[in-house]
């Protein structure tokens, strides 16, 4: 390793220490310094990774899929570097490489990467493994239309060598297979059957306002044999005949409750495993099967994959649990309609729910346009009597959304400050019950930072 990379490492290390002494998370800023000192730092250090350089991208599930894959690799005894805080552009990855001393060697790099940053990051990381989770509409003010996001990922995947694990149940993801470089192996993954559906799933797909309704190859309108949620499922184009490709790795939900899932995963060689996952929801089943497909491609064996799944209790802010005044608080990052609907379904299905906090910020990282709140089925909260506290920079918009969704206003309270709002939600919840905090990205960062200071949650950079 050259002098330049060593210097960048030392500067980065210093930056991280100083910022953390100041109580800051230090996930992105040190990376900028590192890359300023040595623009080639990421490619130099990832060149030294012994076994696997993985990139995980897609709209939802990046952080959880990456955390699961890390756990599976750790189960095989590997030393893994991951950008655990969700800081998923080049600077965040550089910070993680320095923070975990990748310069002195590691077995794997697991990087979750922002869709728009994939091409740049992949050019540096030279990945030999990629996972694409799904494409949903997200932050239109930032990314533009879905077609643009898909193109950015397509371009990023041109840099991948080795294996690409694609969610076959999402037509826009499956369609990427045809534009992969020739020497790349494609592993399709997906879920069997239909999960318990939300209200969206009960209606005709043509009227459901799915994010993807049309065949990317000919423009025909898909029909579905079955849908898991959103546009994920067993689609077929009646015009050109293109349909969901055969899957190599298939997950099945055997049992589910508010706390987690029991699932089976079948691999192509006839091998299969059953594991308990400590996070609920069909969307987490997708994350599990995507991570398992990637782990298998990296040569991780079944027992280690199972151990990784069972050890997992939630990534940073993704159904992360903590205890506060005899209530269990569940932090759930909720950032776009389909993801939000899945979490609301879990909240509504959990008989132990005592109160709900919804924190909506409109910072750059959240998306400044909050019109997507009207695409979320908040009507799921109408049944029952649990109190709902709204907070964040767009608390009032959220309150209006709930009012027009039909929520009894007696149950609704606006508390602008997020920490105060959580305290209010906890107060209004019975002891022993669960308080769900559904938060956009910067609302999650802000609240979590306060909770860290009180020692209620671990430091975010440890993931």
């Amino acid at each position, binding site marked *: 390793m050259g002098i330049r990379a060593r210097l960048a490492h030392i500067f980065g290390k210093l930056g991280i220490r100083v910022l953390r002494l100041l109580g800051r998370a230090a996930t992105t800023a040190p990376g900028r310094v590192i890359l300023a000192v040595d623009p080639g730092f990421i490619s130099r250090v990832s060149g030294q990774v012994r076994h696997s350089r993985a990139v995980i991208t897609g709209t939802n599930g990046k952080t959880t899929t990456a955390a699961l894959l890390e756990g599976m690799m750790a189960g095989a005894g590997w030393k893994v570097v991951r950008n655990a805080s969700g800081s998923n552009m080049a600077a965040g990855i550089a910070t993680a490489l320095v923070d975990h001393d990748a310069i002195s060697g590691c077995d794997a790099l697991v990087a979750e990467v922002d869709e728009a940053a994939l091409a740049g990051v992949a050019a540096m990381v030279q990945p030999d493994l990629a996972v694409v989770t799904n494409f949903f509409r997200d932050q239109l003010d930032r990314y533009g239309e879905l077609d643009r996001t898909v193109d950015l990922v397509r371009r990023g995947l041109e840099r991948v060598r080795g294996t690409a694990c694609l969610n076959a149940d999402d037509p826009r993801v499956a369609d990427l297979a045809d534009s992969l470089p020739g020497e790349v192996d494609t592993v399709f993954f997906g879920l069997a059957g239909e999960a318990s559906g939300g209200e969206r799933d009960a209606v005709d797909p043509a009227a459901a306002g799915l994010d993807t309704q*049309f065949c990317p190859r000919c423009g025909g309108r898909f029909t579905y044999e079955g849908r898991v949620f959103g546009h994920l499922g067993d689609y077929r184009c009646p015009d050109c005949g293109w349909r969901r490709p055969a899957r190599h790795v298939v997950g099945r939900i055997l049992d589910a409750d508010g706390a987690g899932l029991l699932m089976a995963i079948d691999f192509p060689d006839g091998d299969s495993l059953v594991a308990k996952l400590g996070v609920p929801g069909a969307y987490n089943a997708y994350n599990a099967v995507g991570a398992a497909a990637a782990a298998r491609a990296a040569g991780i064996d079944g027992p280690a994959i199972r151990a990784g799944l069972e050890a997992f209790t939630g990534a940073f802010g993704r159904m992360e649990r903590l205890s506060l005044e005899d209530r269990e608080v569940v932090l759930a990052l909720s950032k776009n309609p389909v993801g939000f609907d899945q979490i609301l379904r879990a909240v509504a299905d959990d008989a132990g729910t005592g109160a709900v906090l919804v924190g909506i910020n409109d910072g750059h990282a959240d998306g400044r346009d909050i019109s997507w709140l009207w695409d979320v089925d908040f009507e799921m909260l109408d049944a029952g009597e649990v109190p709902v506290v709204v907070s964040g920079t767009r608390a009032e918009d959220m309150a209006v959304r709930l009012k027009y969704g039909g929520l009894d206003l007696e149950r609704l309270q606006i508390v602008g400050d997020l920490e105060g709002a959580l305290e209010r939600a906890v107060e209004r919840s019975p002891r022993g019950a669960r308080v769900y905090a559904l938060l956009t990205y910067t609302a999650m960062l802000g609240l979590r930072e306060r909770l860290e200071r009180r020692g209620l949650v671990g430091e975010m950079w440890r993931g």
Partner: protein
Amino acid sequence: MRLRIGHMYPDLMNLYGDRGNVIALARRLQWRGIEAEIVGIAAGDAAALGDFDLLFMGGGQDREQAIVWRDLEARREDLRRAMEADVVLLAVCGGYQLLGHYYRMPDGREIPGLGILDLHTEAGPTRMIGNAACRSEYLPEPGTLVGFENHGGRTYLGPGCAPLATVLSGHGNNGEDGGEGAVYRNVFGTYLHGSLLPKNPHFADLLLGRALARRGAGTMGDPLDDSLEWRAHRVALGLAGVDGREA
């Protein structure tokens, strides 16, 4: 009394929380004890647009708008007759652009529109994105409209329609002439989403009032308690950099 609201292309033109506008219209009727019938009008559906009291159309992605366009072309005369019969129509963003004469692409090609509103749109080099506020003479006090805009097209009005509002903050129709949206008879077009109507209850009631008046209903009854809506309105004014008292 029962109003029929037609939601045009709810599956295709739903880019920016557009269904929030329809939810707002339906709820505000329901809270007044007036029945609302919401009908989704999809491409290919047989629907006589003149049978509706109020029509709504949102915006879509390019791919979806191309499909909508093929369907709308067949409905052009039906829609025109409905407009001349003063059926109320609100069109947001992409739907607004489709009502004009044409959309000129960066390469100079012109995609024809319905020609129901005397306006045209030209593709611009950058997108106009952000919180926006404007003031409309059509609205009662405080007269302000708030929302979020995100459009690449610049829309220019001809003499056959009037701007809906004057820009206080943001870009409006084209970033040049200070106008936002367009009005012709009971047809309203705007770039503002957010969703627009839930936090602009006076505008929602303007649309409902015109639809009811057309049916001969004199009054909308007692005002609703909109304190929550106005709180959200004031927050949005602040985000657009407009002081509620000055506006």
